């Protein structure tokens, strides 16, 4: 079997999220070095706060200020910090019940080593130097052996100047993508300016590009079949809006092209003919550029148009 292809694939996305009244107050508070919780119907104080009681699902809005000091309720030593985590030196993950709160807040604890951490230890917030209204405004926790600091349990209206109403949560995941056997064969053949599909052993249809399975029969395809290079335009559209980062003059024609011998049409751009002269049945062939991994576009072969009966099943 030829070598299966692999390539890095990075998926990055900034999630822009709006905040409700409770989260807005909490995150704005962090920017101002004030930690707010929310009181439930049965009198417990949740930190971090949520809009709905996790037990009764009742809406809750009653904000209270809790202390920046607290107690570790459980912990885990992270000797190899990973990308994006709060500290880049070894640290402990901790759940901290802040003084005045009844629930735990997850964050990092900066400590010299696992022997310096235990459940029940006292800690306090270390604030980030630059704060924007995000959970990362808490840089981390640090060991603390002083008294519990005031203010705990005071009601708070949750109002600050210039409230934070949204966050942008960037995410990035890294993959090594492999397209599998069938698509690797397709891409490898393209490198030699050939187009290969696979024939279904059951219905005998030839799929291009091959995906390894026949969607009609639900069986694996394996027999490789070279198709094209010539093909027929089965349908098309005229693109009038220029895509970002695409160096093609509009209008241009994007078409479904049934390569000779294929039972599925693939997509391609039609060139070498004015856009308003492209038609169903037009016979085309691929045009390759130097070093290109796929046909740059398809151009008319000059043959007579294909008869509709020949390609109507492929529309």
């Amino acid at each position: 079997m030829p070598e299966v292809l692999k390539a890095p694939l990075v998926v990055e996305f900034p999630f822009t999220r709006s905040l409700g009244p409770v989260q807005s107050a909490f995150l704005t508070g962090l920017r101002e070095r004030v930690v707010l919780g929310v009181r439930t119907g049965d009198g417990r104080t949740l930190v971090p706060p949520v809009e709905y009681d996790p037990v009764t699902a009742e809406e809750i809005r009653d904000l209270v200020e809790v202390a920046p000091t607290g107690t570790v309720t459980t912990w885990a030593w992270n000797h190899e910090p990973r990308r994006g985590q709060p500290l880049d030196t070894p640290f402990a993950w901790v759940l901290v019940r802040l003084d005045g709160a009844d629930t735990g807040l997850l964050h990092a604890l900066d400590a010299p080593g696992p022997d310096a951490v235990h459940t029940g230890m006292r800690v306090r917030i270390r604030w980030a130097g630059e704060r924007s209204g995000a959970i990362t405004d808490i840089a981390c926790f640090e060991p603390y052996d002083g008294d519990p600091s005031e203010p705990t349990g005071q009601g708070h209206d949750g109002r600050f100047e210039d409230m934070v109403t949204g966050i942008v949560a960037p995410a990035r995941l890294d993959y090594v993508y492999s397209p599998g056997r069938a698509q690797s064969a397709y891409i490898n053949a393209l490198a030699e300016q050939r187009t290969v599909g696979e024939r279904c052993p059951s219905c005998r249809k030839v799929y291009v590009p091959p995906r390894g399975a026949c969607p009609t029969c639900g069986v694996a395809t394996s027999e490789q079949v070279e198709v094209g290079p010539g093909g027929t335009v089965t349908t098309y559209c005229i693109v009038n809006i220029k895509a970002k980062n695409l160096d093609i003059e509009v209008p241009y024609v994007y078409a479904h092209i049934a390569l000779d011998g294929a039972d599925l049409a693939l997509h391609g751009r039609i060139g070498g003919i004015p856009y308003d002269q492209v038609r169903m049945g037009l016979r085309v062939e691929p045009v390759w550029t130097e070093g290109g991994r796929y046909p740059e576009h398809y151009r008319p072969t000059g043959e007579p148009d294909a008869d509709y009966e020949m390609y109507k099943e492929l529309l």
Partner: protein
Amino acid sequence: MTREIAVVAFAQTDHRRTSDEHSEVEMLIPVLHDVLDQTGLKTSDIGFTCSGSTDYLAGRAFSFTMALDGVGAWPPISESHVEMDGAWALYEAWTKLLTGDADTALVYGYGKSSPGSVRDVLTRQLDPYYLAPLWPDSVALAALQAQALIDAGETDEPALAGVASRSRASASANSHAQLRGSVAQGDYVVRPLRTGDCPPIGDGAAAVILAAGERARELCERPAWIRGIDHRIEAHSLGVRDLTDSPSTRLAAERAGAFERPVDTAELHAPFTSQEVVLRKSLRLGDEVSVNPSGGALAANPVMATGLIRIGEAAARIHRGESDRALAHATSGPCLQQNLVAVLEGDAR
């Protein structure tokens, strides 16, 4: 009178660290054909199809639509997908059969963890305001739970190592498992969890066929009847929960009828050794119950299929006559956030 519904066939891949040579559908097809062959059904005979998987493993949107090529989805079939473990797809299929809309269902789950870093990928299922920006990975969160159990005196590191070695020893008899036999407990990944306390990272798929009433008896000599199935959820925030317990598992088990009579087998979806401690307590499993005779998630953890495999393994033991009443559990989310429990029985012998 509600319909009786049974698992009549189960198949799974050999779970492996990587499967670069296969796309998801290429990995899945042999498993789909295996369950169909066991029952003699063709894809066109299936009344309802439901699958579980996630785009975040593949790094591609709508990745499940490509996998549908494997089930003969043209002409259009009655089909659904859950962005969850296949166990939840089974739950959906079970409700579909209960309505009488279909007599048979094909359920599958699959995941390839090898292309990405599953520890990072799973952070994206966390609350995006307070948790996800800190990137607490799946092992770190499980380690917080493990430490809570140790502090509560419910386990210790040697006991966790015992769970690990028992699971991998059991998996010696499971040719599909990824980690089998003696596996070193290893170094800390996130203390107190060592490599041995964590599941292997790998790729795999599983499929089952469900059938209702007489159809089940036609398709399988000893169907594994689903006597009850239920799923429940904890509060998302870890700091709100008692991490040493799993009330949602207990409630799901109660609603599924698990406590009405003892079970002889329990297939538990516990990717971390410490989670088995929590589940045994929540499910009140005594030492007489055979827990994870397949090796469980510690022996093979194809994310999005591992829970479905628990149901499949439990059912297969009933098919083979090795169990009469089995419990299967599936989980999703950090620290056993969501839990599904099914109770399966064979006909009296």
